[in-house]
């Protein structure tokens, strides 16, 4: 009798604890949803077509986000052009060539640590190295190079994961047939790994889209009434624009910041969607061959 009661009580306690844990997991997500809903409501009055096509203005209701949006797209495109080839190259070296070597293990620890360095530190590096030492000024190019250094560790980690997913037996078979290391990499490993590499890399580069701190340190402008006309052009970016609106005391700008956030989050969602679609298509093409 007492044993049964004790067992029943411990079962109830157990269920209660599991429910507590579940609530703890779900509560922060619910809070995020609430906050996002609040932002969307704030943004509604400004979410019109002319918000997307207008330059910033001193009048909140006339201000738009076109300079930031174009700046961000250019920035992210350039960042990807720098970070993806180098990141994939490093990942290939670490996975296919230097495995278990001393250099490889030092590089590996270093990359893991770089991935944890605060983004603002990369901003300081970019300010000294690109803006001042290399004389690039506060340009789109300097911003993209800085963001490329920032996402490089993440691109490398994602690419390595994709390369590691290719079965070792395929490599061994190709090597046994007399293929050289590069032939194995180029003809066997890369075709199988590319969908994973691309997906991971797009996700890594999309992190560059939301970064504001390093660009602020580099000296990205908040008020830009022209579109960038080349890599040497001064620029602004979506997060910078949102930041400058958030800091203005007049209430109209709060709605602008909220609308900017909606645009930023929608772009991020599109990029993530693109990554998923790309992976599906590449995987289908491969299996169809």
């Amino acid at each position, binding site marked *: 009798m007492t044993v049964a009661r004790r067992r029943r009580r411990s079962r109830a306690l157990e269920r209660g604890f599991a429910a507590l844990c579940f609530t*703890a*997991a779900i509560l*922060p997500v619910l809070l995020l949803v609430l906050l996002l809903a609040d932002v969307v409501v704030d943004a509604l009055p400004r979410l019109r077509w002319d918000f997307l096509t207008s330059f910033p203005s001193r009048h909140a209701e006339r201000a738009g986000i076109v300079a930031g949006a174009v700046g961000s797209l250019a920035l992210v495109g350039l960042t990807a052009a720098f970070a993806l080839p180098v990141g994939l190259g*490093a990942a290939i070296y670490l996975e296919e060539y230097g495995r278990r070597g001393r250099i490889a293990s030092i*590089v590996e620890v270093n990359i893991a640590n770089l991935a944890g360095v*605060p983004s603002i530190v990369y901003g*300081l590096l970019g300010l000294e190295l690109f803006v001042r030492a290399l004389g690039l000024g506060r340009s789109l190019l300097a911003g993209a190079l800085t963001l490329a250094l920032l996402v490089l560790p993440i691109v490398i980690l994602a690419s390595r994961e994709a390369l590691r997913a290719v079965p070792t037996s395929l490599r061994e078979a190709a090597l046994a047939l007399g293929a050289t290391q590069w032939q194995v990499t180029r003809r066997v490993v890369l075709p199988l790994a590319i969908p994973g590499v691309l997906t991971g890399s797009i996700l890594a580069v999309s992190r560059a889209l*939301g970064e*504001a701190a390093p660009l602020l340190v580099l000296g990205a402008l908040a008020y830009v009434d022209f579109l960038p006309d080349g890599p040497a052009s001064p620029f602004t970016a979506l997060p910078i624009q949102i930041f400058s609106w*958030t800091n203005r005391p007049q209430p109209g700008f709060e709605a602008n910041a909220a609308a900017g956030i909606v645009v930023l989050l929608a772009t991020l969602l599109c990029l993530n969607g693109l990554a998923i679609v790309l992976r599906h298509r590449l995987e289908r093409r491969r299996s169809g061959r």
Partner: protein
Amino acid sequence: MSAPRGTPRDASAPLHERLLEQVLLGCGLLSIAITIAILAVMVGESAGFFAEVSLAQFLFDDTWTPLFAERHFGIWPLVAGTFLTAAIAIAVALPFGLLAAIYLGEFAPPRVRAVLKPTLELLAGVPTIVYGFFALLVLTPQLQRWLPSLAGFNALSPGIVMGMMIVPMITSLSEDAIRAVPDDLREGAYALGAGKLATVFGVVLPTALSGIAASLVLAVSRAVGETMIVAIAAGQQPRLTLDPQVPVETMTAYIVQVALGDVPTGGLEYATIFVIGGALFTFTFAANLVSRRLARRQYRSVAT
């Protein structure tokens, strides 16, 4: 027979292949170059700073006013602001993150887990500028209803929001640690008559402790380096206080403040951001190393 991977390529490989390997190696070594470049920049600018400001003033003065006429260079107000916001963030993130990890690792049915885990990751994917907006314009006004003495800029609200952002980091690393506990140990506990709760608290969590500590250290490092949330919502008043209701300034927010102002490059004010940046880099780099070591310690102890 071809050489096994990891050994030097044989000299008979065509020249262009050997060149290619060097290029790939170069890509890998670039990451080392980045670390060295960061160190060089921070050390170079800090050397100029400490030539004019004594280390004693940096460490023992209790005011930080490099931009005022009467300049003081005591780092503690910025350190206090940084660790106050970080401590609030951890106080929020640790209980939620750890309980969520226990749920995912010990209780969640596979199907719930498959949905819940990526949903939680969303929290970490939202740009920090968005969290900054939440903290300043949504959470602070809400909190002021309950706490009338809360200032418009304060440590509390950005701390809480930052905690939300860090939850997935604690959850994912702690869950890895919990799942790495071998089932033999759980079954041993059940065989001795322990219930589920006794097993979780008596066996699983103690075994996973160093992995959980690793996630905590990494979360602290992330909170200390976080910039936009505190730059937007915590204020720009370096203040040696532990009161979460008043404006403070963190190390990262100070760097942003100087970068946004019209400080001439090359001066002492300009050098301060590299000194602060160097301190941030040193702290986070050390924290990452400690976290790695802690995580590995668990896997080693479980393996034996």
